[in-house]
């Protein structure tokens, strides 16, 4: 595989929920290390696109490949394994297990992959340090601030050193200053480890951290190639 071959290739994806056409023939590439913003108004289908790309939701039709491997045909177990090992996720809120300490939360994806507890927590501690939230390692998410919690979530997304991180409105619940810090840490860490980021947002200021953007409206992509570097 050449270095420039896309990580994720989506061709003509469609997905319908009930009578709502959430995706209507979307084609998109995600290249290694790039930060791609998926923009669009609420209900445009941008979250559905992300869920399809991440293999959480199976599209009704179309083709999705990860490093050339057909994901549309993969079983739930295979896609789950892929998400555990290759992908990371950051959501707007409600993603940290409230009973576990922040350190244990970050170690969770590693432990689900079978890494021993000590080793998992050592690596988790490193990522908490990288994201400047080592101070809350022993606290529960409820005892940390919103911005800290979101940085813990990013540490958790990055701890498996995934090739793609999917972030769905990662700053949606934060104020501008905290949102900025979270975005800066996310993009810095991603660029340093050549992790691609699929950034779902409706905020231009957040999208400005990306390398390029796609705009989803009514389940279709408006301009794909429109934005130059």
């Amino acid at each position: 595989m050449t270095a420039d071959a896309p990580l994720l290739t989506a061709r003509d994806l469609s997905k319908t929920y009930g009578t709502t056409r959430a995706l209507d023939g979307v084609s998109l590439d995600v290249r290694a290390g790039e930060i791609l913003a998926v923009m669009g108004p609420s209900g445009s289908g941008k979250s559905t696109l992300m869920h399809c790309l991440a293999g959480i939701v199976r599209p009704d039709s179309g083709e999705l490949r990860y490093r050339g491997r057909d994901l549309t045909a993969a079983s739930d177990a295979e896609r789950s394994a892929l998400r555990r090992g290759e992908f990371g996720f950051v959501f707007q809120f409600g993603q940290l297990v409230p009973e576990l300490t922040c350190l244990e939360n970050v170690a969770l994806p590693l432990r689900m992959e079978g890494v021993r507890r000590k080793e998992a927590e050592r690596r988790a501690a490193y990522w908490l340090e990288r994201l400047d939230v080592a101070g809350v390692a022993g606290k529960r998410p409820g005892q940390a601030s919103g911005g800290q919690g979101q940085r813990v979530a990013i540490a958790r997304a990055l701890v498996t050193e995934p090739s793609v991180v999917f972030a769905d409105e990662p700053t949606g619940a934060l104020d501008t200053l905290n949102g900025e810090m979270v975005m800066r840490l996310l993009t810095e860490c991603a660029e340093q480890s050549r992790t691609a980021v699929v950034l779902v947002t409706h905020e231009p200021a957040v999208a400005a951290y990306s390398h390029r953007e796609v705009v989803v409206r009514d389940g279709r992509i408006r301009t794909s190639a429109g934005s130059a570097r």
Partner: protein
Amino acid sequence: MSLSHTLLALLERGPRHGYDLKQEFDAQFGQDRPLHYGQVYATLARLLKNGLVEVDAVEHGGGPERKRYAVTAAGVTDVEGWLSRPESPELYLHSTLYTKVVLALLTGRDAAAVLDVQRAAHLDLMRTLTRRKTRGDLADALICDHAIFHLEADLRWLELTSARLDRLAEEVRS
């Protein structure tokens, strides 16, 4: 930005040579365009004429003669008046962009494409500013943010207009 007011305010902290004033201005505000010496001296001359500054001392060194300027009481009052006066919010009721969209609609061209191209351009600029902001210091960040927020406002308008293009088309063509 009012250069005369800025220089007056800088002089309030203590008498300066013209050269020092330029250096200080550039350090605080000149990220985009450094001042020319000429601009500084022209402005100082005007302020001197209006009695807002005075020459505090003249140094005769090995080189050309250097004047040290100090702010006068009238100058301080002027700075105070300037700071306490609000800047009038600028309004762009008839922006070029709006004109473009309406014209595209009237001539049957793709108005959405106009908006898309503009959005890409705006976002590209925002991206550049964001990158600069993350690499620069706090002063850089604040200045970039100011620009970013303005761009964001434009983008918000673009977004809203995109969503309302159909209705706009009806009204324009009727």
